[in-house]
């Protein structure tokens, strides 16, 4: 069945990520053989060769080059025998064509999750400042064409964030409250847990997984 819940984040008072969970999904990959000249425009973005123009045949913007002629690309470096070449320069030479290139959809790395958590922390605060009326909270719901983000901030400033697919009508409030409850039970009551540090407790992981399985079945409504 399709996963409605895509990401879970717990962010501490200072905006640091202290817990994250991600649904296991198959990363789309597309392989294609090109004649000179290649009709996809590639640029180096975040040390990867990324598609910036020319969506075609399932290859979309932000996809990056994963391998060339079966040889894995590391960042923008392509290993050819004992030699390393820049994959962008390699694809500019007519002598190398025809060439088979495999593209993969982007994923969210651990470092990116940390950056995104800090970013959300700032957005949350700015939303309070820019409120046109009194006593507004920060961002509680953020909707895009691809996903929905729900956020619950506790009295002590810890933020619980869940990201679902756009089509999902999951009862996020119930899910977030339950997450908060599990946080208090398995993190705060743990005598070895330092406040505001990343949560590394196996029982917490197991409890979260169980919660999410029940949430998927009951459309987010989780009650005992």
């Amino acid at each position, binding site marked *: 069945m399709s996963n409605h819940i895509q990401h879970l984040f717990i962010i501490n008072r200072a905006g640091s990520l202290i817990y994250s969970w991600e649904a296991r999904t198959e990363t789309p990959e597309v392989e294609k053989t090109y004649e000179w000249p290649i009709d996809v425009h590639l640029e180096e973005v975040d040390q990867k060769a990324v598609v910036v123009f020319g969506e075609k045949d399932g290859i*979309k913007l932000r996809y990056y080059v994963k391998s060339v002629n079966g040889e894995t690309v590391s960042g923008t470096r392509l290993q050819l025998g004992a030699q390393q070449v820049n994959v962008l320069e390699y694809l500019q030479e007519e002598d190398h064509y025809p060439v088979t290139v495999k593209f993969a959809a982007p994923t969210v790395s651990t470092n990116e999750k940390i950056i995104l958590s800090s970013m959300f922390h700032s957005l949350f605060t700015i939303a309070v400042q820019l409120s046109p009326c009194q*006593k507004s909270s920060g961002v509680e719901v953020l909707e*895009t064409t691809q996903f929905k983000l729900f956020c619950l901030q506790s009295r002590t400033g810890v933020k619980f964030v869940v990201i679902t697919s756009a089509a999902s009508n999951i009862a996020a409030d119930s899910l977030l409250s339950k997450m908060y409850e599990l946080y208090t039970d398995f993190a705060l009551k743990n005598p070895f847990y330092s406040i505001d540090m990343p949560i590394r407790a196996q029982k917490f992981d197991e409890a979260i997984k169980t919660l999410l399985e029940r949430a998927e079945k009951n459309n987010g409504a989780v009650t005992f």
Partner: protein
Amino acid sequence: MTIYNVYIFDREGQCLYYDEWFRTKQSGLAPIQEYKLVFGMMLSMKSFVDRLATNDSNQTVNYYKTSAYKMTFLESATSIKIMLNTDPNATGIRDLLHKIYQTWTETANSAAKLELFASNPPNENFLKNRVRDIVMKHPAYV
């Protein structure tokens, strides 16, 4: 239900238009600083959602909601950005944004033509009256 205020920005972040109706809380910043903050927040939000969604390339922020208000976004292909703050439960806001954008493009085109042939630039109220007319007719207003 009510409509609080509206911002229109160009692609570089210049605030082309601002108006407010039932705003009860000021941000505490000078207007120019507030416009920069709103635009910066929107840029960050776009960057944030782009990196989170790995499915597809064409993605836009529809809105965000807090306990007290809802900011709805519209961005045209020419990167004109319109942000409208309303009550969280207001409906039909996307249609209203499209009407505001249509009014903006018509007025901008008229203004450009007038500047070519007339000695006096068009009055600022030229746009303000039309936008206010559209907003005040909307069911979410008051």
